[in-house]
Structure formats: structure tokens, C-alpha cells
């Protein structure tokens, strides 16, 4: 299962992407509860749908597009709370740990993907 978190917006408007590939049974055991805790069916799937559903956006806030396997969610930063926040923070930490460096600069893909 591929987990991808894309963060856009912010005053600097620099996109960051964190990607993790959960492949082994042990990985899946750790990721599945985190992914399944999120109410995917209760939130918009795309930025366009989120824009239509949301109140007026707050200036300079981040916006998150999240995928996990076939599931998709599009959330303004203020809605990234509870299980979504856990998913985002965990994916970011895992992608950065897998890249083996300090947090990479904006725009860089801290890519936890193996080949393929």
C-alpha cells in the first residue's frame, strides 16, 4: 500500500510530498490501523470538491491531498486533526526517516518508495 501526503499552499506556496510504501506484513500491520482510523468517506476526495464543500479558505493556510492505496482525501490544514493528523505526521516522519536525512527542503520528495 502506497501512502502519499502532498502539502500545498502556505505563504510560500511551496509543494511538499511525503511518500511511504508499506510492503511487508509488519509495515501493513502498522499502517492499516492508522489508515483505517481516518473517515475517508466523510471528506472530499479532491481539492476541487473540497473547495465546493468548504467555508471560505483562510489566507495562507496549507492544504493536504492524501492518498492511501485507492483511498483519497483533500483537506484544508484546519481539518487535519485527530486520525488525519496522525496519518500525516506519521507518513512525514516515515518518509523523512526512509530518506535518511533531515527534513528535505520544500518541493523535494522525501520518497520512501523503493524501485517500483
Amino acid at each position, binding site marked *: 500500500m502506497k501512502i502519499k501526503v502532498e502539502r500545498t499552499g502556505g*505563504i*510560500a506556496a511551496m509543494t511538499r510530498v511525503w511518500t511511504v510504501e508499506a510492503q511487508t506484513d509488519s509495515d501493513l500491520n502498522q499502517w492499516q490501523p492508522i489508515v483505517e482510523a481516518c473517515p475517508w468517506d466523510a471528506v472530499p476526495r479532491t481539492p476541487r470538491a473540497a*473547495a465546493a464543500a468548504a467555508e*471560505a479558505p483562510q489566507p495562507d493556510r496549507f492544504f493536504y491531498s492524501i492518498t492511501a492505496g485507492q483511498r483519497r482525501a483533500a483537506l484544508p490544514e484546519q481539518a487535519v*486533526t485527530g486520525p*488525519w493528523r496522525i496519518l500525516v*505526521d506519521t507518513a512525514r516522519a516515515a518518509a523523512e526517516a526512509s530518506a535518511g536525512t533531515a527534513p*528535505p*527542503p520544500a518541493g523535494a520528495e522525501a520518497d520512501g518508495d523503493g524501485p517500483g
Partner: protein
Amino acid sequence: MHVQFCSIVPPYLLRRLAQQDAPGFSSAASAARKALGHVESFHTARAQAVPALPPGLRQVKPGPVSRSIYDAAGEETLPGRLVRDEGGEPTGDAAADEAYDGLGNTHRLYADAFGRDSVDGRGLKLDATVHFGKLYDNAFWNGSQMVFGDGDGDVFQRFTKSLSVIGHELAHGVTQYSAGLAYRNQAGALNESMSDVFGALVEQFVKNQSAAEASWLIGEGLFTPKVQGLALRSMQAPGTAYDDDVLGKDPQPDSMDSYVRTSADNGGVHINSGIPNRAFYLVADALGGYAWEAPGRIWYQTLTNGSLPAAATFTVFARATVRAAADLFGAGSREHDAVGAAWETVKVKV
């Protein structure tokens, strides 16, 4: 929404998450522990556009500034702990003191140059929170106050380091309380451009710089020395603020020829703002002198005179600036001509 999401996660699952001890899962574990303790909360005020004030109120003499600076201490709860109130001694904390000074200077620009009494024109108390979140790479206006992160230390330093960024955030408040420009597509890019214009003007006003002396950069000094770039944006030459091996290149267009269509960033509000930003720079460059004088007055009048629709396009805005220039300085004046010529250069039809 937070409560709803929290209640969706069954306590057994939170407990399981809280016990995660594998490398990389520590943030999940600590967040789950927080949620279990019901200590995580995040309330933000709703952004709300307010109609322009009646002309009589706009003439009221601005009152003294009233500031409160709060410290979120790495949490995301607003406003945080009060660390400096109006007239209080410096705290010794750079972020808190920069925010205090930045709010004061921004208030002074609006009062002295435009006769405006704070963000809402009615003496609104100015609140700011510093040290928001952990390694938080951003600053924002939440509809009622400013919020500043410390940066990750790798790409960004603390966001209070740049006076144009402080001015930018406060200008979002001014826009909210005047034209109420929608934060999407061209109206959103105009909203962003207003914040860059008045953010740049605060910096120039404090440094007493003429248009020719000013850097016209937004967020100068925010990048760490590792980044190949001067600032977040350049109003003089949009698209040239940074060009870094890892960050990539500043994506701002400098005319309608390179307008970016995208659904990201609320329809590219921070990208296409380069076009009206450059138009303002071109007016200031053509007229010379202090940009907060004629150019600033024309833009301020356009933003606050009640004629600008919330869904204004670039063309609607451009026409409004041309009318404002004619109202203030006369049809055929050099100010009026400079505004028309600027929009022509950036290829916005007037």
C-alpha cells in the same frame, strides 16, 4: 470538526496507536496519547468578509495601536500564553519582539499614509501568536489574528524575521474588512497581491526607502543560507526570487502570457499574484518617490472604497485602479497614465 474526528477513532485504536514504538511511529503514538487525554484542540475563527466602512467612519482619526503577543510554545492552540501587551517591556524573545514591532509599524503605515485606524478601520486590537507548532513552515491570518511559525531551520527561519511577511498577514485582515476579496482564482490572487503590496510598503515605510531604493522582495531573509534564493517572491521581477537545486524555481508569472491555471493553492493565488504585484511595482517605478504615496493611495482607495466586488477579476481590479487614479489625481494625470501603462505591460485588459 475536530471533536467529530476524534470521536470516530475508537479508544481501543487510540490505545493501540499510543503504544506504537517502532521507529517513525513516535508522532502517531504521541498524537494518539494526546487524543486519549483530550488535550489536543485547535480552534480558529471563521474568516469573514465585512463590507467596506461608510466614508464617514473612514475619516475618523486613527487611534493608538493596541497589541497583544502570545506564545503557543510549539503547540497549535490559539492564542497561547500572553507574553507582551501594549506598552510592555521587550520579552527578549526575538519572535515575540519582532511581532510586536512589526504590528506597530504596520499600524503606523495605515494610520499615517492612509488615515486608517487599524485593520478594520475601527481600532481593532492586533493579536499575534508566535512559536506556533513544531518546525512550522508558515505564517497565516486566521480571520482574527496573525500566527507565525518558527520554520524548520533547514529551508525557513522564523517567519517574524521578515517585516513584509508581518505586513502581508495584517493586510489579509484589511482586505477581509474592506473588499472581502474571495480567496480563490483571480480574486484570490488579488487578495494575495494586496498583502504583498501593503507588506512591501510597510517595509519601505519603516526603512524610508523610495521605489528605486526598495528591494521589492517579499519575505527577504526567511530562507536559511542553504537555500539559493533571496526571498519568497519578487514584485519587481516575478519568477526570479529563488532558483534552487532542491526547491526548484520561483513559479510566478510576470504577465498574463504566462498565467498559471491550477486547482492547487486555491487556484494559484500565490502564483498568479505575480501579475498584479508587478503592475503595482511598474506604477511605483514610473512615478518614482515613495511608493506608499501616490501608488499606495491609488491601490488603497481601490481596495477600500466599496466598489470592488468580492469576486473581482484582474480586469475588474485594473479598471478600478484606473478609476481611482483618475478620481485622486485627475484624468490624464501622470498617475492615471502610469496605472494604465502598467496594466498594459502585464497584459491585463483594462
